[in-house]
C-alpha cells in the first residue's frame, strides 16, 4: 500500500472532527499502519542512534500524516486519541508475538542509573492488560480511554484532559480509579490462573 499523503489523512481527520463518524473507520488503519511502521523501525533498530519517547513517535507520525496548517488543536487532540489507540494495538501485538510472559524477573535485575525515565517497577503483561482494559471500557469507557491515552499514547495529564474534554482533576481521578480497577481485575485473573495450575 502506498504511503498516504498529507492530503488524505488530513481530510479524514477534519471530516471526523466535523462529525463524520465513518471517517474514523478509514482513519484508524492508516494511522495504525504508520505508527506500526515507525515503532517497528525504532524497536528493531534500523535507526540505531535514535532514542525513543512515545510522544516523539506520535508527533513524528502526526507531522508526516497531517497537514498541520489546516488542523486546529482539537483535531490534533483527536489525532492523539487515534494514535494512542493505534499504539496500543502495535505494542500488544508486539508483546503477543514475542510470547511475552510477565517481565518480572528480567526487569527487576536492572539497576537504575543515569538519565533514566523508568521506574524500577515491573512492567505489566501487556496482553493481560489489554484484555482487562477492554473489560474496563465496557463499564467505564472514559476511564479506559484515560489509560489508553496516558499509558499507550504517552500523553500528559493536560493533553489527556484536552482530548477527553474534561478537567485535569477529573483525569487524575479517572486515572487513579482506572488503575485500581485494573489492578483488581488483573490480580483476580492471576489467582484464577494459579488455581488452574494447582487443579
Amino acid at each position, binding site marked *: 500500500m502506498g504511503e498516504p499523503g498529507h492530503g488524505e489523512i488530513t481530510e479524514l481527520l477534519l471530516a471526523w472532527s466535523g462529525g463524520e463518524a465513518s471517517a474514523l473507520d478509514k482513519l484508524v488503519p492508516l494511522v495504525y499502519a504508520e505508527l506500526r511502521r515507525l*515503532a517497528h523501525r*525504532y*524497536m*528493531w*533498530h534500523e535507526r540505531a*542512534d*535514535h*532514542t*525513543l*519517547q*512515545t*510522544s*516523539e*513517535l506520535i*508527533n*513524528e507520525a*502526526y*507531522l508526516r500524516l497531517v497537514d498541520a496548517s489546516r488542523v486546529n488543536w482539537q483535531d490534533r487532540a483527536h489525532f492523539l486519541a487515534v494514535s494512542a489507540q493505534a*499504539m*496500543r494495538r502495535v*505494542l500488544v501485538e*508486539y*508483546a503477543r508475538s514475542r510470547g511475552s510472559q510477565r*517481565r518480572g524477573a*528480567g*526487569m527487576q535485575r*536492572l*539497576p*537504575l*542509573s*543515569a*538519565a*533514566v*525515565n*523508568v*521506574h524500577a*517497577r515491573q*512492567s*505489566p503483561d*501487556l496482553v493481560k492488560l489489554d484484555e482487562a482494559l477492554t473489560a474496563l471500557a465496557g463499564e467505564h469507557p472514559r476511564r479506559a480511554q484515560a*489509560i489508553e491515552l*496516558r*499509558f*499507550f*499514547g*504517552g500523553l*500528559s495529564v*493536560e*493533553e489527556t484532559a484536552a482530548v477527553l474534554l474534561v478537567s*485535569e*482533576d477529573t483525569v*487524575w*481521578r479517572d486515572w*487513579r*480509579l482506572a*488503575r*485500581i480497577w*485494573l*489492578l*483488581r481485575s488483573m490480580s483476580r485473573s492471576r489467582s484464577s490462573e494459579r488455581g488452574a495450575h494447582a487443579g
Partner: protein
Amino acid sequence: MPDSERERRLEELHSAALQRDASERDEFLRQACGDDAELRRAVESLLGYEQELDGFLEVPALQTATLDAMAQERPLVGQMLGLYRLVEPIGSGGMGEVWLAEQKQPVRRRVAIKLIKAGMDTREVVARFESERRAVALMEHPNIAKVFEAGATPQGRPYFVMEYVAGIPIKEYCDQHRMALRERLELFVHVCEGVQHAHQKAIIHRDLKPTNILVEEVDGKPVPRIIDFGLAKATAQPLTAETLFTRAGAIVGTPAYMSPEQAGSTGADIDTRTDVYSLGVVLYELLAGALPLDFHQLAFDEILRRVREEEAPRPSTKLRTLGERSGTVAQNRGCDPPTLARQLRGDLDAIALKALEKERSRRYATPMELAADIGRYLRHEPVMAHPASGAYRARKYIRRHRMGVAVAAGLVAVLVSFGAAQTLQLRRTLIERDRANRERDRATRVAAFMTGMFNVSDPSAARGNSITAREILDKASKEIDAGLSEDPELQAQMMQTMGDVYESLGLYSQAQTLLTRAVDIRRRVLGPRNPDTLTSMSGLGQVLQVQDHYADAEKLDRETLGAQRRVLGPEHPDTLKSMHNLGIILEIEGRWPESESLDREALDIALRVLGPEHPGTLRSLENLGIVVNCEGRYDEAQKLLREALDIALRVLGPEHPDTLRVMLELVHALDDEGRHAEAEKLDREALDIALRVLGPEHPETLRSVTVLARILNEEGRCAEAEKLDGETLDIQRSVLGPEHRGTLESMRNLANDFAGEGRYAEAEKLQRETMNIDRRVLGPEHPLTALSTYNIGCILAGKGNRDDAFPLLREAVDHGLSPGYDLAIEKDPNLQSLHGDPRFAALVAYTKERAAAALKPK
C-alpha cells in the same frame, strides 16, 4: 440507579479521604459513613491500593518496551569500548543511552557509559569535553559522580565514561520514600555542597535537573550524587528551535530548569548563579511537587519569554492550584495538603523564590548561600531570603573619590562606576500586594513592558543604544504624568522603574527628577514609614551620591536610616545597607571619624545578625577598611581589607566579581601607602582572574586595568600606563559607546598619561575633547566636567602657560569640583610649577573656603 449512585458516593469519599492526613481520615470516614459499615469498608479497600498503585502504568508502555528490545536484540551487548565491556542498557534520555559496563584492567569496576546519539560533531564534542576534563577530574566530592573519560565509538558516536551510580532520580526517591520536607531539605543541602565544590573548581554544570541528581543508598542512608558534570558544555548546542524541539515538535530540551539568562542570550553569559537557578527549580519541585512555570503546548519563543519574565508563584500558592493532585503531593511528603501549605508558607516560600530570581544579582550568589539559608530554616533561625522591601540593590560599583592622605596626582581621582547596579527590578511588591487580579496584572504587564523594551540589565548591552533608549524614556516620562495620574501608587512605581533605567544609562539628573517624584508620591500616598517609600528614598540617596550632591544625599540617608531603624528595626538588612551608604558618604565628604564609627557599628550588627561569612559583613569590613585607610592607619586598613578578602575568597570564591572588588580596594590601600610594587602585583592577579572569568570587556576587568594604569602612572611609568589606558579606551569606545562615563574616564586617564610623558599637545587635545562631551552630556556644573576643566588647567600649568591655567582652575572649582580637592590642589605635582605664584595661594584658600561651605548641610 441506586447502584451507580452508591458507586459515585464511594468514589467521592475515596477522593476526599485521600486529601486528608492519615490521622484525620478515620474521623472523617466515621462522620461521612455513619452507620454504613459496608460503605466504609469499600472506601478503605480502595484506599488500600495506594501503595500498589505506585509506579503502576506510570511510565508509558513504549519506553519499557524499548529497553527490553534494546537489552535483547542490541548488537552492542558484550561489545568492547576501550577498556570497557558493555553489559546492558540501563536507561535512555534526550541525548543518548546509558549503558552499564565493566572494566577489568587496570582495575575491576563497574562504570556507566553514556553514548551520545550520532548527529553531533564527535570531534568537537570530545574536544570540548577535553578542555574541561582536567578540571572535572579534579573534582572529588561525595555528592558528585566522577566522569572519567570521553571517547568515540568506531561508528563515530561520542561517549563518556562515568562513575556508576546505583540510584534513582531525587524526585522519585523522595516521593517513593514519602520523605517529609525536613528530610528532603537535608538531602538537598548535600546537593548544594556538591555543586559548590564544582564551582570552586570552576566547573558550572549548566544542566542541573532531577534526572541528573541520583540518590544512592549507602549504609542505608540516602546520598545524592550529581551526574553529568562537564558534559553540558561539551555537548552544548546552540539554542535554536531545532535543538529545543525534535523535528517532531515535542520538547526534549529541559526548558523547565533553564535559567533566565540561558533563555535570554546566546547562552554565553553563564556563571555560577545559573546553577543556583536550576537548583532553585529542583528545590521548588521537591517542596511543592510541581514545576514553577508551565510550558506545555507553547511555541519556542513563548517558552523562552516565560523563563525570562514570568514570575513563579510561591510554592504554597502553587500547591493550592494543583487541585486533586495536591493530595498526592502531600502524601508523598507524609502529610496532608493544609499542613503542607502551612509548612511551605513563609521561609520556604521565600528561599525557593530567591533562588529563582530572574536577575542573577538578586539570587543567592552561590549554592552554599542557598544551603546556608536552608540550614537556618532547619535550625529555626531567621532566614535571609525575604524579599527586600527596602533598598536592595547590588551596588557593586559604587563611585568613590579616592582621598587617601597621599593623594595621587588628583587628576585620576575618580573611579567611576562603569555600569551601575542591576536596574530594572520587577518589583515583587507589586505582585504580592493584595489587589484585585486585574490591577495586579496591569501593573505587572506595564512594568514587564518597560523591562522588555529596554533590557538594559547589562551595561555592555547599552552600547550605542543609549540614545534610542533615552528617547523612548524621555517620551515615556512625559506621558507618565498624563496617563497614570489616577493611580498614584502605580505612577510612583513607574517613576521608580524609569528612574532606575536612567540611572543605569548614567543619566543621573533625569534619574534624580523621577526618583524624587517617586519619593514624594510615596511619602504622600503610602506614608513616610512604608517600606516602599524607604526603598525609593534609599535609591534616591544613592543617585544623589553618585552625582556628588553629598549634602543632600547625607540628609536624605540620615532620614531614611532613622525611619528604617524605627520601622524595620536596627538590625534589619536594609537598615544595615543604609548605614553602609551613609558611611560611604561621610567618608567621601572627608568626615572620617564619623564614618568610621558608623561603619564599626554596622560591622558589629552584621557580625551579630548576618554572621561572619555573609556578603553584608563583607561589605562592612570593606567600608571600614577604606575609611581607616583614609585616616592614614594603613596597617589596620590592610588588615581589615585582607580579612574581607579572605571571607570573599571563602564564601564567594576567587572568581566572584565582589571578590575582585575587594581585591581592588586592597590594591588602593597598598597604593596609597606607597607600596606600589605590592599593589601592582595584587592588581595584576586580580586582572588575571578577571580576564579569565569575566572576559576582557567586563567592567570589573576594565576597572582592574584602569587601576593598574593609575599605579603605573604614579610610579612614573607613564608609557606603560598609556598603553593600558589606550587599550581600555578602545574597548570602551566600542562596547560602551563614545559618550559613556566609563569611556570618558579612560579618556581623562589617557590624557594624564600623555601629560606625564610630556606630550602636552596630545594631552590637551584629548582632555578638551572630553570636557566638551562632559559639558554637553553632563552639564557645565557637573563634577566630572569640572574635573576635565581642572585637568586642562593642569596641562597648561605643566606647559608653563600660567595665565591660561589659573582661570580654568578657578572655573573648575567654581563649577562643581568636588569637595576635598583643596587637598588635591595643594599637593598635586602637576601644579608644582604654580607654587610661589600668589595666584596659587589665593586659589588654594578659595578652594578651602568653598569646600568648607559645601559640607554644611543646606
